[in-house]
């Protein structure tokens, strides 16, 4: 199972209430997988040369003031916002990639959930209902967002194994399905220098996209590569700086429904999650075709 939801705003009014819609959609999909939940929300882009880091500590008693001071000395911190005891959003005066690399090298107890100019990413091994409450998702504004509720099949129920997975600057991946060739592919990607933190199959798909785009592929090309190189079942949604992309495997065992109005484009694993969106009854509703890459917004690597 697992549930995917995503919404891309086409109007200022909807952007104001993006989090409210996302939260309701995610909770509606909660019975497709209550093991963990996560969301990536795109909003408030920082300036060129700056970055937003979504940081996570597995340790509740982490000293964020000391961490901020250390990051501030090395990179310059322009803004910092506590999200929960374990999550913090830090804006730094450095590009996303070197900022992420610095944190990973010097603060190994932290995990950089995402790095980019617009992305904010949160996830936790709790039910979707508790997740949206603890992280205040309903109160968030934004241009677009994707979220995931997990029924674990391929690896343990941990925050690290929860979705979304970061796949590069302002990019993240959520997945409904399971991959059967992830062990072999992980070995191959490690040889290419891609790092992995879990034995999770979706992290391998995320690493695959990261590797393909590092080698010069566009997001669309990297997703098309999945059709050749990934063996298994998947509906993927990829959050990008400007929108999102959707791909279903050619067999299409895993569901996906899209709805579009003048105000939004939305995706969900089931129509139930779309039914309460404004104007849903009159929206154009369709299922994305198997093996076809769809994208909304300028689905490009941010920057």
């Amino acid at each position, binding site marked *: 199972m697992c549930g995917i939801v995503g919404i891309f705003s086409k109007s200022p009014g909807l952007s104001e209430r993006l989090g409210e819609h996302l939260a309701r959609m995610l909770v509606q999909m909660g019975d497709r997988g209550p093991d963990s939940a996560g969301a990536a929300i795109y909003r408030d882009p920082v300036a060129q040369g700056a970055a937003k880091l979504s940081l996570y500590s597995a340790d509740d008693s982490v000293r964020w003031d000391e961490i901020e001071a250390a990051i501030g000395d090395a990179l310059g911190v322009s803004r910092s916002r506590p999200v929960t005891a374990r999550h913090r959003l830090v804006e730094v005066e450095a590009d996303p990639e070197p900022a992420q690399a610095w944190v990973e090298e010097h603060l190994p107890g932290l995990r950089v959930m995402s790095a980019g100019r617009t992305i904010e990413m949160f996830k936790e091994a709790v039910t979707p209902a508790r997740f949206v409450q603890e992280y205040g998702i309903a109160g968030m504004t934004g241009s677009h967002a994707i979220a995931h509720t997990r029924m674990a099949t391929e690896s343990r129920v941990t925050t690290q194994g929860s979705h979304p997975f970061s796949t590069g600057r302002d990019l993240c991946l959520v997945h409904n399905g399971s991959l059967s060739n992830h062990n072999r592919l992980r070995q191959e990607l490690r040889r290419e220098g891609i790092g992995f933190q879990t034995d999770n199959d979706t992290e391998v798909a995320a690493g695959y996209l990261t590797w393909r785009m590092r080698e010069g592929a566009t997001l669309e090309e990297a997703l098309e590569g999945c059709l050749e190189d990934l063996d298994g079942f998947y509906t993927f949604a990829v959050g990008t700086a400007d929108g999102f992309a959707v791909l279903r495997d050619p067999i299409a065992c895993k*569901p996906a429904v899209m709805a579009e109005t003048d105000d939004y484009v939305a995706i969900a694993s*089931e*129509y139930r999650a779309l*039914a*309460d969106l404004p104007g849903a009854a009159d929206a154009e509703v369709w*299922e994305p075709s*198997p093996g076809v890459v769809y994208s909304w917004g300028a689905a490009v690597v941010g920057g």
Partner: protein
Amino acid sequence: MSAIESLHDTDLAQTSVRELNQALHAASAGRWQVANPGGRHAIAAGLTAPLEVEIDGHAGYYCAGMNQLATVRVHGNAGVGVAENMMSGRVEVDGDASQSAGATAHGGLLVVHGNASARCGISMKGVDIVVRGSVGHLSAFMAQTGRLVVCGDAGDSLGDSLYEARLYVRGSVASLGADCVEKDLREEHVTEIAALLTAAGIDDVDPATFRRYGSARRLYTFDVDDAGSFA
């Protein structure tokens, strides 16, 4: 609960699907108008009486599953497995149907006025399915008996591992599945298509413009010498 004409309004924003289905299972006759389906699952599943159920909006998974005798119409789209394992009666979808529409159904008529996606009529066992639009890949997979009429196109691997179901497609077929072959469209088949279209309420499609597909009967009477045919 005697009046044949009894009319019931159910709002699924107020009433649970379970309450609706229990009322439908307890009735022997009557008409139901169901509002705000909201993509909920199993709406009007398991009916066994000649009821009439109208669903105003999009239904979720397994709508009208296992139907016997009842007439269920979805004024919207239907999710996965609409009319799955239907035994008799009529299920009609005004919009699109998701995957596995009419799966394993033994009888009755399923009409989809939009498109049906993958695996339409998978393992069908006697149902008649008429799709006004197109069907997705692996439709009529392992279909045993019954008729599938597609006014639009069919996706890849139509009729893979087919038994004795008869498939009629008016548009293009992306590819045929293992052991599915095109066969001559004879007069009796045109008559059969015409009757199915009429039953589905479709009167602007010429029954003579379809092509017929069926089983080559080499797979279920498998001979090891034919193994190369099923790569």
